[in-house]
């Protein structure tokens, strides 16, 4: 099974729109949403059956037993995350800052602190005619990279006999993106012809290169700024990356999304362009 990961650096360039189109076009039997912080793929990949849900345990959170606490304050001094606060002569743990490292638990002379398991999100696995692995991180949690790894593991363990798996990624270049990069065969970057889009594209290319993953690039909404589209094409030449095509701006995309459908289920301008991007991408993936 070859895995294609869709990334962008900048948010809102059309990762999920392209991912959902690719899933329909390839009739992929396996796909995943690694944007665990703001997952959206499930909104247009309507499912007949309810998913199998599993709680995702993050890093654990420390708790202070006020009965045992002797108010020495050592935990507050040693905490690297400023997670221990003194309130009304009592030490408490701010769960949103606590990273579950266990330093406080280890150094407390009064043995008043313990790190407890913490539900940091939910993993979901849909098994219908296809397998769809996704998750939702609990608000404010800091372990998105680990959850991304779980989403991919879930897809791997499903033992699907299929040639290609499509993985929708998250914006940015940080932990969830780095976690999503491991073990994929190729990255498709969906860029946008704005100066911001170009700057973010460079940063995601540099990140993908650090992890030595083969990368190709397409431009979405290319006609909103032709000059910048040409800049992106030239940059790809410079970086020696394959450029797999231009997708025009199409207001039907918004309509399709709001109907919970993929753009390729509509007959419109963007559809043909996405089909061509798809063909080129799959060709490169299979060589």
């Amino acid at each position, binding site marked *: 099974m070859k895995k294609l990961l869709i990334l962008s650096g900048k948010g809102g*360039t059309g990762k999920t729109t392209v991912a959902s189109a690719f899933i329909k076009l390839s009739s992929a039997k396996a796909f995943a949403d690694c944007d665990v912080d703001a997952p959206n793929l499930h909104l247009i990949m309507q499912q007949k059956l309810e998913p199998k849900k599993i709680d995702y345990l993050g890093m654990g959170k420390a708790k202070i037993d006020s009965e045992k606490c002797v108010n020495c304050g050592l935990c507050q001094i040693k905490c690297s995350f400023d997670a221990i606060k003194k309130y009304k002569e009592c030490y408490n743990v701010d769960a949103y800052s606590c990273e579950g*490292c266990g330093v406080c638990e280890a150094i407390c002379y009064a043995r008043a602190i313990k790190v407890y398991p913490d539900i940091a999100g939910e993993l979901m696995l849909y098994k219908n005619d296809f397998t769809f692995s996704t998750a939702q991180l609990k608000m404010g949690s800091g372990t998105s990279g680990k959850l991304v790894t779980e989403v991919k593991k879930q897809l791997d363990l499903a033992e699907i006999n299929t040639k290609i798996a499509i993985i929708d990624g998250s914006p940015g270049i940080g932990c969830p993106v780095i976690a999503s990069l491991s073990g994929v065969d190729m990255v498709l970057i969906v860029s946008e012809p704005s100066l911001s889009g170009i700057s973010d594209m460079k940063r995601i290319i540099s990140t993908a290169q650090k992890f030595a993953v083969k990368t190709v690039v397409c431009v979405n909404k290319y006609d909103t700024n032709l000059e910048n589209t040409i800049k992106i094409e030239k940059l790809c030449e410079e970086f020696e990356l394959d450029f797999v095509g231009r997708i025009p701006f199409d207001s039907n995309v918004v309509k399709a999304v709001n109907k919970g459908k993929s753009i390729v289920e509509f007959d419109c301008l963007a559809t043909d362009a996405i089909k061509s991007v798809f063909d080129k991408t799959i060709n490169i993936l299979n060589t």
Partner: protein
Amino acid sequence: MASYLYLMISMPDFTIMEESKMKIAVLSGKGGTGKTFISVNLAAASPKAIYVDCDVEEPNGHIFFRPKELTYEIVSVMTPVVDHSKCNGCRTCVEFCKFNALAYINKKIMIFDDVCHSCGGCTILCPEKAISEKKKAIGTIQKGISENVKVITGMLNTGESSGVPIIKKLNEDILPNTDLTIIDCPPGSACIVIESIKVADYCILVAEPTLFGCHNLNMVYKLVQLFNKPFGVVLNKCIEGENPSEEFCTKHGIPILLQIKFCSDLGRINSNGLIAVREKQEYKDLFSLLLKSLPGGTV
């Protein structure tokens, strides 16, 4: 004249704050809704403001402001180093580390900086005092001036996983300031967003007119409620037809501060890295109006 329309939906009546001006965080859940567009133009529309880019993974505000008189500050975290001559192989550190950043391989402690969370536990707990800490650079804070705006940008080095330490450092800079401060947040609702809104007095949630936009608006809506931050919504890129995000606001009684219609002129200005309020008076008027509708009535 560009073909854009805007509507001021509500003008909340806030008491004017005298001494210190507001710190306003702009967030969205979904990426690409226009956080940076709103943040940059709000700051530029004010007579004097500080713009802080907390989207350290993909900072873009500086592309618009092109700040001058730049200064740089390196942001570092502490990671462990082992003195192998002191290490007796007891593995206390390996067993303690929850992030698997240490391993004992071929009778030698190996450290994996990439997954280290800099908790300091291994250094504290090593019975032989064989572990000490060294600084590791993870990013940069860039400061500069762009006309009426002081521009502060956090930048995470590529390949680094967490920008939270950079935002903590940015917060130290923001906190004592008394000028109007606009904080451009990262997308999502994870730890990094919470860190970014910590010092904010007010939050602006930016949403797109799509099912995706609405779904992600719901997440940040819950987030700002959880942290008791007063907030309002700006609906961006509005087109004819249904707007799930608008319906969401109506249903939950959320104040809509402004609706900006999708318009190719604004799109062009923005994609070329220009600041709309510095290009046309009508955009300046639009954002001045938005500023006035915020608590403190900043003009």
